């Protein structure tokens, strides 16, 4: 990450060149002298100059893959990516990445996004390059991106490989937990020269997370939470998910924790788990929510129904690895421990 050492040495070479009055044509790789005076008078100095030319040439050859204004970084999959140090035509290959770029205030660089990039509302008007699971290669290439940011889960690996065959640098992120999301924000901030904004954003997220953490530290009981993300079949979340992490941070006990990331349940199994807090989110919006809530409301034996603790939440706050996960955390905190947050206010 960051500016590579080679770039700095490149700057030193350029300085050296100006000191010695040498003309450098990077485009044609031609090195020549502009100072022609005293030629022949000091053969030794000519030899020196030749030597210097040779050394400079060798150094430039060593730096050949890094043309001016380029740098090499390692992405989250450990791949080496050579990209512009000031990318101006960025294409985001997932809604979450679009959100992060907007949150960093670098949307002017964004020249394309995927179909469901709907937050913030300004993102809707960006040129679309297919959905994140079915990218339209032709549209991406036509936008002439100097950087594509991809996400490992969802973006087809083959599309990434093919994009690179068009000399489009693709930086792949793979955030697996809240901490990794903050790191991703910092990395994207670094790629887009928005280091300060990224640091501010992450500090803000961390302080809000800490506020919830310190509030939750006082609790004596962690209510059992059933978090339903799929309607039919009934799907919940296992341990290795953002939602599990948020439930635990918000002082709940995820009843469906386990090695399977998105386990399926029968209605019978859900009743057996006896959740105290029931939270429903789904890709399908609107009336479907209400219908599902109504269906569960028949089971008065379930503690969550008895105590009227069945809630609907906006799925975008929970399934996208963006700064808005912290909004999701605060929403969960209020739903799982309403008493604590009232106390705080």
């Amino acid at each position, binding site marked *: 990450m960051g500016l590579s050492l080679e770039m700095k040495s490149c700057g030193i070479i350029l300085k050296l060149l100006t000191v010695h009055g040498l003309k450098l044509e990077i485009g044609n790789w031609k090195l020549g002298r502009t100072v022609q005076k005293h030629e022949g008078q000091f053969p030794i100095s000519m030899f020196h100059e030749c030597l210097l030319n040779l050394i400079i040439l060798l150094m430039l050859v060593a730096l050949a893959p890094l043309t001016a204004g380029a740098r090499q970084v390692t992405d989250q999959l450990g791949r080496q990516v050579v990209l512009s140090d000031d990318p101006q035509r960025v294409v985001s290959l997932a809604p979450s990445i679009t959100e992060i770029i907007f949150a960093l205030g670098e949307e002017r660089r964004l020249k394309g996004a995927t179909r469901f990039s709907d937050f913030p509302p300004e993102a809707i008007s960006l040129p679309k390059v297919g959905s994140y699971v079915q990218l339209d290669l032709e549209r991406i290439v036509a936008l002439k991106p100097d950087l594509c940011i991809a996400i490992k889960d969802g973006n087809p690996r083959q599309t990434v490989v093919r994009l690179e065959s068009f000399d489009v640098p693709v930086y792949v992120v793979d955030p697996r937990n809240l901490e990794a999301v903050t790191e991703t924000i910092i990395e994207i901030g670094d790629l887009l020269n928005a280091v300060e904004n990224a640091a501010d954003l992450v500090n803000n997220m961390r302080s809000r997370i800490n506020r919830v953490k310190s509030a939750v530290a006082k609790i004596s009981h962690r209510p059992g939470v059933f978090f339903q993300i799929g309607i039919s079949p009934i*799907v919940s979340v296992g341990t290795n998910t953002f939602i599990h992490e948020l439930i635990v941070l918000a002082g709940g006990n995820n009843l469906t924790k386990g090695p*399977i990331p998105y386990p399926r349940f029968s209605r019978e199994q859900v009743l057996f788990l006896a959740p105290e807090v029931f939270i429903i989110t789904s890709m399908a919006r609107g009336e479907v929510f209400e219908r599902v809530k109504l269906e569960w409301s028949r089971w008065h034996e379930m503690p969550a129904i008895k105590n009227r603790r069945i809630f609907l939440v906006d799925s975008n706050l929970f399934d996208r690895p963006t700064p808005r996960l912290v909004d999701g955390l605060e929403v969960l905190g209020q739903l799982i421990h309403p008493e604590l947050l009232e106390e705080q206010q």
Partner: protein
Amino acid sequence: MISNKPFLLRRLFAVSLLLILLLIVTMFMGISIGSTGNDLKTVFQLLSGGKVVDPMRAAIIWEIRFPRVILAALVGATLSLGGLVFQVLLRNPLAEPYILGISGGSAVGAIIGILMGLSCFPGVGFTAFAGSVAALLLIILMSSGQSILKKDSLLLSGVMINAFCSAIIMFLISMTQDAKLHNIIFWLMGDLSMSDTRQVVILAATLLPCFLILFLLSHSMNLLLMGKEIAQTMGVNIKYVTMILLVVTSFMVSATVSHCGLLGFVGLVIPHMLRLTLGPDNRVLVPSCVLGGGAYMILCDLLARVLPEYGEIPVGVITAMIGAPLFIFLLKRSRQ
């Protein structure tokens, strides 16, 4: 049949020329039109060897659209040829690679490959081929010995294998995590978008010899259609020819299935359309299935790319939606 050889050659030449023209026109359309607009002028410039203003457009035309058009042509040709061969072998107008369970077998293999996280090529290609070979072996085993020549037993075992494969596919889908479900479902609906030049070249190198073998066997296919007694007296080794036809066809089909999933109906529509217009001689039908099937698939893929505002319609949906009504119309007219 031997006496009218010059006539046959003339006919073959005329039909092929016509279909080659059709194929060239569709290919031209295929590389000119895409999701970022149409480039008729650029394509003309490129083909006439002129300087192209925008290298990016040239890259889109040659490296994105062209391999895809070629892939579509290869797949269309393979599936129609597969349909033709099975219709001859089973003497059943409803036969196509799907009916025999060959596609089903390679689909099961390919889905297992996707679930194992293998790369599309050669990983999934290999598991798909293994699946289709397994299906083929099962079919041959079930209808082993002399009964391989009985069309009913071959068809029945095919139907059973197909049903079994569908059950396995459904089982695998129901057990799959959401993240991989997308991949499998797109693939099952038929997807030509993942074609790069290298893969298409490999596919072409495997398919073109198969086309040639089938063309060389087309006279035997004619004789097979006349019944096994006549074929035998005309010097056709029925068992041998049947085996070659089965193996070559299932190899071709599994190669395409592993690349672009299940594309239905092509194997039914194209051979029938061509038979209704050109007559039943397989020596004409084999090359015209290759050319006509290719052109048909390019057109369907073009529609799949252009019709929706965002993304693509799965091309399998288009082949069926155009194919079925066209087929019914032709059938009705031919009966009148």
